[in-house]
């Protein structure tokens, strides 16, 4: 089949959605499909959004390919007779984050007009799709609640999970993710202060372009609390090779973003490395993968509660190992695989 994979991109910032598109492309190619991946640069500046949305509407690929799979918003505005959405998140600041501190459009009449136009355009494009899949229940619920459309949950796998391995259990918790405010690496640092055990923390990943102050804040906090011996920061893009080693050697992984759309690739990578995941009750999509006490722990987003979870796994290595092993089972239980994903997308 000839397939167009379409997405938007914020140039030079790699994150989950970059990998999502890359891996989907690889997976389709590995099944002998011919794939054209279109990555359209997109600025999240609300004053430029409507123009850019119109641009997507005007670019015409409707005569090419047997199917178009649209991923990151608002790439689904591209027109195609066989359009399928694998919807990974809304432009949230005009949806569920409207009225919160994350709202980036002023609540003026003009701001409301921008918001309405974006939602209206989404509603049109969503109804053009042959099928809509979402990457989590959270996102499917939002689609139902805000856009009144049904989406089927199709959990995104990682590429070549067999690359990951367990290398016994070290004495550090690994928080591997882009470094940015809503991933809450700082909360993990605060938790280390409250641990009884000498458990360590490794924070690894590239800081977002605007997250340099946040990184500074983390560093400062580490210094203030004299945690230099216990907290290691690797503030850069981590190669696959390093990543595999970091996961293999950790005691367990931490992934506790605020209200995330999906379980996040780091959680899957941890499980494929046989490691448990500590997340938080308000982390959103991670709660669809992690079952408290089974394949990880879900403390409240409170440093002391998180510290207790860290200590528990440090004290009971056997428990940590069992939870890690349960993680792999949980992945197959949820049907997280490329076979499932591609069968659904192409059926």
């Amino acid at each position, binding site marked *: 089949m000839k397939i167009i994979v379409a997405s938007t991109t914020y140039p030079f*910032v790699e994150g989950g959605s970059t990998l999502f598109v890359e891996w989907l492309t690889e997976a389709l190619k590995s099944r002998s499909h011919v794939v054209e991946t279109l990555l359209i640069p997109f600025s999240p500046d609300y004053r430029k959004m409507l123009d850019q949305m*119109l641009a*997507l509407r005007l670019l*015409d690929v409707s005569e090419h*390919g047997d199917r178009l799979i649209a991923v990151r918003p608002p790439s689904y505005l591209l027109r195609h007779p066989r359009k399928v959405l694998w919807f990974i998140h809304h432009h949230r600041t005009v949806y569920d984050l409207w009225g919160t501190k994350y709202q980036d459009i002023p609540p003026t009449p003009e701001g409301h007009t921008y918001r309405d136009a974006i939602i209206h355009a989404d509603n049109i494009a969503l109804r053009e799709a042959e099928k809509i899949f979402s990457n989590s229940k959270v996102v499917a619920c939002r689609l139902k609640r805000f856009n009144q459309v049904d989406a089927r949950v199709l959990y995104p796998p990682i590429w070549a999970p067999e690359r990951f391995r367990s290398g016994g259990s070290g004495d550090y918790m690994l928080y591997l993710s882009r470094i940015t405010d809503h991933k809450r690496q700082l909360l993990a640092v605060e938790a280390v202060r409250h641990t009884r055990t000498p458990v360590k923390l490794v924070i690894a990943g590239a800081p977002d372009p605007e997250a340099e102050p946040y990184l500074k804040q983390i560093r400062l906090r580490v210094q203030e609390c004299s945690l230099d011996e216990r907290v290691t920061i690797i503030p850069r893009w981590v190669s696959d090779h390093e990543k595999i080693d970091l996961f293999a050697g950790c005691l367990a992984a931490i992934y506790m973003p605020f209200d995330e759309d999906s379980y996040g690739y780091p959680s899957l990578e941890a499980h494929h490395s046989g490691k448990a995941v500590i997340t938080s009750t308000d982390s959103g999509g991670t709660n669809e993968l992690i079952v408290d006490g089974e394949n990880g722990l879900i403390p409240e987003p409170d440093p002391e509660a998180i510290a207790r979870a860290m200590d528990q796994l440090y004290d009971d290595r056997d428990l940590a190992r069992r939870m890690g092993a349960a993680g792999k089972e949980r992945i197959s239980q949820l049907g997280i695989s490329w076979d499932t994903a591609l069968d659904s997308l192409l059926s």
Partner: protein
Amino acid sequence: MRIAVVNNCVPFLTGGAEHLAQALTTKLIEYGHQAILVRIPFRWEPPAKIVESMLACRLMCLPNVDRMIALKFPAYYVPHHDKILWLLHQFRQAYDLWGTDLQGLPDSTEGQCTRDVIRQADSRYLGEVRKIYTNSRVTSERLKKYNGLDSEVLWPPLLEAEHFSCKSYEDFVFYPSRVNSAKRQWLAVESMRYAHSPVKLILAGKDESPADRRRIETIIAEHGLQERVVWYREFISEELKAELFSRALGALYIPYDEDSYGYVSLESYFSRKPVITCSDSGGTDVVVKDGITGFTVPPEPRAIAGAIDRLYENKQAAESMGSSGCALIHELGITWDRVIEALTR
């Protein structure tokens, strides 16, 4: 520097410009920059789609990018505060091809309006960029003539020069290229009737139409040239092409009125082989200097045959002309060093 190379694309098709765009992106990274290739789908039929594509590009954003390098219409309309053009060609149907068989656009009012919109948009928006480089003198001249814009030629280098080398000077001349009437392989074959030396001609490339194929096969059959002409009727691999260049006596590159010197010439010189071209071949005169880096002859079979014979009779001269060609390429700055330096300045 964070650089976006911005080009058009047609989904599922890859042409010469796309290869160049990809190579440029790869080279920018090799030279220590961060670079991405942005490919914007372009549709030109019906003509209204052209204008829609232009508008789409104008409405797009390129955030988090320090420099934009644009290559083609209409991708070069994407706004950016630090935009440099390396113009491969404009939408020629609205310019020099208008009024010819290749006009493409209809003669209707719609067609004329489309032409005018393209011309006006080019004059206005290309005037806003920081610097315009083009790939050839012809492209620069057209830009000056139709839009009144000044530009500088930045010669496109060979994508992978390191594939090419010299092994020997054997008794064949090589002409790898798509086979069509404008590339004039038929003239090359015709010339073999008059070559006195035992030199063979090796063609490599797929015929673009049955007529192109018939024309060549007829000449071969009528004049009994089966022993003198070998034709690989396919896209040969890069390896085979490099191998044949490394052993050839010289290259033949005799298209009619090309804009550029062609990759064939560059590949030949990186293999230290002289190039025979014609006086009406166009851009080849940038690198083919008669008697110094090859021969420039009238587009006549006897003249071409004479040039082939001269290479055979004096292989030492062939060798030295090939080396001079390679030196000239570096002198002219047809290298990635020069391209990257200019585009990131």
